[in-house]
């Protein structure tokens, strides 16, 4: 089914623009911008400062754009979070699904209608943005590019909203979830945007990756390039691709839940999530400055992969402890969440390193970041040790609790136990190892800049094995 023919899209557009509501929203949208801009001009006297006019224009543009970004971020989850849950509450969902429309058609149709609505809002507010052209300093192409980035980001928030709408049982919960999700993503994505924001204020060019996935960086992103595998890519392109990936994931998640969480769509979702994870990790492996690339991997790519994987809602049958690994491999049991996360983090990190090493010799990186073969070694050992420890803790937890309580119990105990054990043991160890021992045991997998000691690893592994033995013995 092609998108322009999608009946859901047609229906949404037809009804959304019916009546006064949409136009009231547009009016409010433009009004807020006019008031803020007007206030800024009057209060700060932007135009009377001794800044060159072009720079004033750039600042002006950035503020206008950020305002749009703020409004779009606030509006989109609200618009999308009700879409599917409303169909469910109105009892119209079954009848639509019986027409032979696929859940994906419904989700994509609704999302497209929201995209069009946001384009409509942005177009309606163009006159406010056009003030920038009076001061100069901003190229029309830059503005267009920023809008493209804004649309991609809007789709990320929209797809999060629609996924929440498919998962939640009521409108209220859907809206709450959507806003929490959008805020988390907004904050997480604003970290890589920092260098690009600096550019707006005339800062120096810095190394950055995924710098415009949050459109906060969009006003500066047009001048920004990111280097992967020694090749310069425009920042907006990379960020658009990344945001498109996230949108796809959440759209799939929504249609998966709409179709009643079937095994088949769960498998598809996990494969797509894992595929994107591998792709993006490999891309970051080609980054010159690996430590910055790691930030993106940790705060961003891995969490989203995990959400997509665990959000499938398909649980493996409750299996005895013996088949724990089988459960972990299936990657769908919440009980195994922490361990699975560690495995995914490790895979991502190893992948990045692998790609990095493979291309290190072939490509001359511009910044010459020193290569540390020891880091990889540490990473592998730490990953293994953590895996052992967590398997043991998982086995022990599941010995005592099952089902829903296991989820909660393991989440708490799984995080706390190794730290607790190590914390207690650290009292008997030499003082230099005792500081933040537990913390290090948890984090050595990720942070190769903290130099872990062999004693940490031994203690962690022994603790894990002990847990496993106790679990077996209690049987």
């Amino acid at each position, binding site marked *: 089914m092609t998108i322009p023919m999608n*009946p859901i899209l*047609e*229906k949404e557009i037809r*009804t959304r623009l019916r009546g006064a509501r949409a136009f009231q929203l547009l009016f409010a949208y433009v009004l807020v911008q006019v008031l803020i801009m007007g206030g800024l001009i009057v209060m700060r006297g932007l135009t009377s400062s001794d800044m060159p006019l072009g720079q004033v224009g750039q600042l002006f543009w950035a503020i206008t754009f950020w305002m749009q970004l703020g409004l779009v971020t606030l509006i989109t989850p609200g618009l999308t979070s009700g879409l599917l849950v409303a169909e469910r509450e109105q*009892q119209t969902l079954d009848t639509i699904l*019986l027409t*032979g429309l696929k859940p994906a058609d419904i989700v994509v149709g609704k999302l497209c209608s929201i995209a069009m609505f946001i384009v409509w809002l942005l177009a309606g507010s163009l006159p406010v943005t056009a003030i920038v052209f009076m001061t100069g300093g901003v190229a029309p192409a830059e503005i267009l590019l920023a809008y493209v980035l804004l649309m991609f980001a809007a789709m990320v928030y929209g797809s999060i909203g629609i996924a929440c709408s498919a998962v939640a049982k009521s409108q209220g919960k859907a809206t709450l979830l959507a806003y929490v999700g959008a805020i988390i993503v907004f904050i997480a994505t604003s970290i890589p945007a920092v260098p690009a924001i600096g550019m707006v204020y005339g800062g120096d060019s810095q190394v950055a990756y995924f710098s415009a996935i949050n459109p906060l960086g969009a006003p500066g992103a047009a001048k920004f390039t990111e280097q992967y595998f020694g090749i310069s890519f425009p920042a907006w392109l990379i960020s658009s691709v990344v945001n498109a990936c996230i949108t796809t994931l959440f759209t799939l998640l929504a249609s998966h839940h709409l179709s009643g969480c079937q095994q088949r769509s769960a498998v598809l979702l996990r494969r797509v999530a894992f595929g994107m994870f591998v792709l993006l990790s490999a891309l970051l492996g080609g980054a010159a400055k690996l430590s910055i690339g790691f930030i993106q991997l940790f705060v961003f790519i891995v969490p989203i992969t995990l959400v997509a994987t665990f959000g499938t809602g398909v649980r493996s049958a409750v299996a005895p402890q013996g088949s724990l690994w089988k459960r972990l491999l299936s990657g769908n049991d919440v009980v195994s969440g922490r361990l699975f996360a560690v495995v995914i983090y490790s895979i991502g990190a190893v992948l990045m390193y692998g790609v990095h090493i493979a291309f290190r010799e072939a490509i001359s990186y511009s910044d010459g970041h020193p290569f540390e073969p020891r880091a990889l070694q540490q990473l592998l050992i730490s990953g293994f040790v953590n895996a052992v420890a967590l398997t043991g803790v998982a086995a022990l937890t599941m010995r005592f609790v099952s089902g829903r309580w296991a989820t909660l119990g393991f989440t708490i105990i799984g995080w706390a136990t190794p730290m607790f054990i190590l914390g207690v043991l650290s009292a008997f160890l030499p003082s230099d190892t005792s500081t933040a021992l537990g913390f290090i045991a948890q984090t050595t997998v990720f942070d190769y800049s903290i130099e872990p000691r062999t004693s940490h690893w031994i203690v962690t592994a022994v603790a894990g094995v002990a847990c496993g033995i106790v679990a077996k013995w209690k049987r």
Partner: protein
Amino acid sequence: MNEPLRIDLRNITKRYDKLTAVDNLSLALGPGEIFGFIGPNGAGKTTTIKILATLLEPTSGTAFVDGINVVENPDAVRARIGYMPDTFGVYDEFKVWEYLDFFAAAYKVPKGDRPGLIDLVLDLTNLSNKKDAYVEGLSRGMKQRLCLARTMVHNPKVLLLDEPASGLDPRARIEIRDLLKELRNLGKTIIVSSHILPELADFCTSVGIIEKGKLLVSGPIDSLIGDNIGARVLEIKVPAEDKAMASKVLTPLKGVRNVAERGEVLDVQFDGGIDAQNDLLLALITAKVRIVSFGEVQTDLEAVFMNLTRGLVA
């Protein structure tokens, strides 16, 4: 007859944790049949219909619509059925024709065919004059009819109507009934459920009574009444002084099951044929019982229903 059965349920069972909603239910319907599904609330009507509509999977047993397995090939089944749920929503912000156009589009009816089709179903459901009205402004009966019109936009062979007349005033009920008769004439196979009997009695070709998930009886209405009421009831009015005599004569007669006094009349449960009934009357007259009136109490579906579900209904 090469055409497959329109509806073919074989030993369908649907179990939720402890509750068995549908228990070993079998049913076969051909073209042009209207099957009335009768049972109290919670008997399993909706579950059965939802299984046919591919919304639920049976725990065991197989179901076919037009020869197609509902579990293995739900998409093909969906194209052949029109399903009207017992509780349904409509898009209030739509106009009537837009609502139908949306569903026609969803059913992949070509754009050029839609206007004619919409006029047709609107005409069939008597809503032509509401074509440009907003759905929001329709009465409940009209919404119900609109929903029925919606189930027909893709010209399905089978209609599954779950309580189509619930909550309607008598007039709207009659309209729905007439509409169903018309659809039967179009050769559609219809399953219509209700917990109210008279609603179904006069246009269904066959009925089935379901109770606690079990299909107690099913078949054409006449045979149901004959077979299942068991005894007909003869109402014989005799003077008070002849009552004892009448009872004495009646009790040993063939076909008489029970004689009960009810005021001035005797209710005789009787399962013989017409000849036996003649003989019974003759026997009374021969015995000099003065008969004031003699007649058969009209039994109907309601009586069958009450008889069958007695004590079962909570």
